[in-house]
């Protein structure tokens, strides 16, 4: 008899476990707990037991009954969630509650990206003032007063000797006056020229770079700038170094990349040349070293300047530089 109830429990649990749908479960429930079911039958037959065994057998049967009721309930609810037919639920096409986003200005993003490339190459960031003395903006960079090279940059004046910096290059003499070689810095920031039309804004961004050490060569300049361009665009980007003139570098080089729009076939963006001017660079002019007291016999170096807008325009396919400073939220939201 003892064994009997254990067997009932074991069988019941096993068959509940195996029941695949609620119909089978329903039948099992009738089989074990129904009015003509196994447990009822067991209880009815208790009177057949010896008297001393009757109370404990009754108790055990009732416990099992409660236990099975619970197990059936769980099994039913488990099956319901698997094979239930009601999918009404929620309208998942209702728009979500927006987790709103903001973003950095595209110029900041591109500047950060460029800085990151040079930081990985071991350059440090050194900033310098946006309003500059004529000395740092021009003289220290080997651009004396009344030099025709001053025509290359239309300058905003605040007073006779104070200008809005026309390039980030003043960071070169400023850093070198403060630091002994070796020097490896980049200097991002705003620059200003009094020029305003479709292709010019009176304020724009540059990143200056400067590396000074023993035995730095023009070949090294090519190496660093090629690495930079390959990281910023891609490894397939072909580039060329073209002689140019900046008073503070000698030799000077413009760096062109194969037009990313037309792949070099010639288009409006590259004014049919197939090349895009990306940055200016060169070996630091000895006059600049002399101005900051560096030994020109011992040290050489290179410098470069990258226009950030140009890079951002190529990266994002923007054709009008003025868009950057209109702060139209529809524009900003895209980045």
């Amino acid at each position, binding site marked *: 008899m003892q064994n009997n109830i254990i067997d009932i429990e074991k069988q019941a649990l096993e068959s509940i476990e195996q029941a695949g749908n609620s119909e089978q479960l329903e039948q099992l429930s009738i089989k074990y707990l129904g009015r003509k079911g196994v447990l009822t039958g067991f209880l009815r037959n208790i009177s057949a037991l010896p008297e001393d065994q009757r109370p404990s057998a009754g108790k055990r049967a009732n416990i099992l009954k409660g236990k099975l009721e619970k197990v059936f309930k769980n099994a039913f609810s488990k099956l319901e969630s698997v094979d239930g037919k009601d999918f009404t639920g929620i309208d998942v096409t*209702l*728009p979500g*509650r927006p987790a709103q*986003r*903001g*973003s*950095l*200005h595209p110029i*900041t993003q591109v500047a*950060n990206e460029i800085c990151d490339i040079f*930081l990985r190459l*071991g350059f*440090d*960031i*050194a*900033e310098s003032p*946006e*309003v500059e*003395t004529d000395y740092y903006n021009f003289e220290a960079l080997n651009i004396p007063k*009344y030099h025709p*090279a001053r*025509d*290359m940059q239309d300058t*905003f*004046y*605040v*007073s006779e000797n*104070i200008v*809005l910096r026309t390039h980030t290059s003043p960071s070169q003499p400023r850093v070198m006056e403060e630091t002994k070689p*070796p020097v*490896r810095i980049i200097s991002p920031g705003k620059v200003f020229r*009094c020029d305003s039309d479709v292709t010019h804004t009176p304020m724009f961004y540059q990143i200056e770079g400067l*590396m000074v050490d023993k*035995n*730095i*060569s*023009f*070949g*090294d300049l*090519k*190496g*660093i700038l090629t*690495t930079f361009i390959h990281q910023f665009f891609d490894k397939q980007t072909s580039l*060329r*170094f*073209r*002689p*140019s*003139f900046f008073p503070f570098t*000698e*030799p000077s080089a413009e760096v062109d990349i194969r037009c990313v729009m037309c792949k070099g076939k010639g288009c409006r963006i590259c004014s049919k040349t197939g090349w895009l001017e990306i940055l200016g660079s060169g*070996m630091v*002019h*000895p006059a600049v070293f002399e101005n900051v007291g560096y030994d020109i016999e011992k040290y050489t170096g290179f410098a470069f300047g990258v226009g950030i807008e140009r890079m951002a325009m190529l990266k994002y396919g923007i054709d009008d530089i003025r868009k*950057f*400073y209109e*702060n*139209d*939220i529809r524009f*900003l939201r895209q980045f």
Partner: protein
Amino acid sequence: MKVSLNWLKEYIKVDLDPLVIAEKLTMAGLEVEAVDERYNYLDNIVAAKVIEVNQHPNADKLFVCKVDAGGDELIQIVCGAPNVYGGMFVPCALPGAVLPGDFKIKKGKLRGEVSAGMLCSAAELRLETDAAGIMDLDGNFVPGTPLEEALKLSDIVFEVDLTPNRPDCLSYIGIAREVGAFTEPEQKVTFPDYRLPEGKIGDISIHDSAKVQISDPDLCPRYSAGLLMDVKIEPSPFWLQDRLESIGLTPINNVVDITNFVMMETGQPLHAFDFDRVAEGRIVVKRMGSDMDFTTLDNKNHKLEPDMLMICDGDGPVALAGVMGGENSEISNSTTTVLVESAYFNPVSIRKTAKETGIATDASHRFERGVDPEGTVNALNRALTLIAQVCNTTTIAKGIIDEYPQKQAQPEIDINTNALNSRLGTHLDVHEIRHILESVDFKVEKTDEAWLKVGIPSFRVDVTRPEDLSEEVARLWGYNNIETSYPMAAAKGKLLDKKVSLREKIGSIMTGFSFFEAINYNFVNENSCDRLNLSDRDKRREVETILNPISDQMSVLRSSLIPGLLETMKKNISLQADTLKLFEIGKIFFATQKGSLPEEREVVAALITGNRSDQSWYSKKKRFDFFDLKGVVEGLLQGLIIGNLSFEKIEDQSCPYYKNGYAALVKSGDTLIGTIGQINEKVLKNYGLKQDAFVFDLDFKALQALIHGNITAMLLPKFPSVSRDITIIVEKSVTIGAILNQFEKITQKQSLIEQVSLFDVFEGETLSENKKSLSFRVVYRAANRTLKEKNIKKLHTNISKTIIDLFNADLPE
């Protein structure tokens, strides 16, 4: 500078493809910006055959011609030229053609007869000076052949964008020298004959009638001059006009055209004076020395400054030296005696004069970059010869004047080829370097194993030191032939600059709060301070003004980021974007002493306006208010780990752009970080705005000073907390800040209080008008045990009582 290939071939032998020439010039540092077909303007003009000529029925002097222009049918053209005849080959401009002078050819009617084109004269096509009749092509052509092809007209015009260091290439000879260096085999320039033609020299000596005196040799180291007599001023012959027109210059007359031609050829600017109008036949080159007015030959008046270099005659100035001649001595149709000037002027002096008078000429452009001081006499002789040639009545006076008080040095530079190679990263041997330099006419001598002595030709005013020669070698060897290498440098890293990392952190927090970064110009409207309603003594009125602004809207450096943000708001609202969350990190500027740099201060500012949430299925439309932005400031500072924050109501006029009572100072401890507030009506109106705007404005340096960097993580509590609320009713004038301060004081003494926060504010309805109901939640926790109800009950009652007493509060009914 424009360069005609046909003209260039006078000086150098080159048969490379024009595009190859352009590429090679560019890669030698003379950037070719455009390569144009000179005769493109002859498009739609063909060689046509006149088949039939009939009298025009309605006009005696016109003919109606049937012309075979190569099409399926003959076309009818009305023509007025008396020399037209049947069987004649003529240039015929078809509809769509545009003749020089922007004359567009269209199909039309002339006196009632259809005319579907135009038969052209040589002058109309700028192919000859002959304007008498239509051009007789004199030969047999297939009708319809493009005229360019029929006449074998072909020329290429290069547009070369020269850098300011290469004045020597502002001439055909200079460009030819560069071209010669890259042709294979190398070519040398064929110079024009600089000798004067014997047969044209008269008996009179220049010294008998003309005198030149240089009073200021520092500004005019050399002045050469020649004299021409019996000149007849006429239009130039065709070849000369054609040369000038090929590069876009307008022919004027024979004398002036020759001076321009020789300038283009040699790079030496020349000036021709009507010598009969030069008083006393005397030329004095001197600083003006006083202020006076002067009329240049373009009929404009200029104020002369005392230090400007002038060419004077016996009476006074006749030319602005090196810039432009005067009206008083200009060549006119009646001129017969001409003095030709060929001088070397100090570049800086010319540039000053050109800047101050606002005149930029081809001459000043060259002088201010530096012409060849040794080239004056050759250019002079060339001009005298050519004038005598194109105007055959002319005789050249015997001799020339050549005042050269300050002989310009001819520098020699010693270069160490090892140093040169190591600067460039090349491995060129001495001979290669020597050869490269000689290809553009440097005089090179080998002095030692690795040393070269390089004589710098006088036209290369840009080369003054060994590094300049390294550039010559590099560009002629080819930048792209220099091997790419990588510098050996110490792997020494530094921490990211503190300012940079703070900026990045602020950017990431603000964008995380769904703000967009704006970048506004550093310059703002000159009336920005007025529009912000600033008082006269406000520091922000100490603005730095730009002397040459682009416009009044951009004429002062900003002393606050708020005007830029308000302008941006205005712009976006006009574009129908009326909900904005913007921030900007940038510098503001305050003027200091005159002539000193302004103070630059970095600021973080933000603006919100519009709806916190738009109307949607899950929420009602809600406008932003002060507390939205305050939450941002709190979140930002929390993100930067700056604690001890307080917001103190602004109760003075220090920020007169905020609405009274709706603005606060932001402080951490005693440090003022910035302000936050709602923009008042008046300022909104000044910016043409109609909706509420809230801004904050934080000082970057103050933030930087408050950052201590390290976070020390707290142990998390092990035992549960218990919360109890208290609701009190107080006078409206009692600030929440004051109550929270008191709670803070209690908290400091009572370690079981973990946190006190406000969770409800209620006014109106059942409350009397001057009261408000405030609900606080106090969280209790012990570090080492679970608190029991009875401990808390007593504590909470005590605390409640303290607060009620302190603020004279009531409990709700």
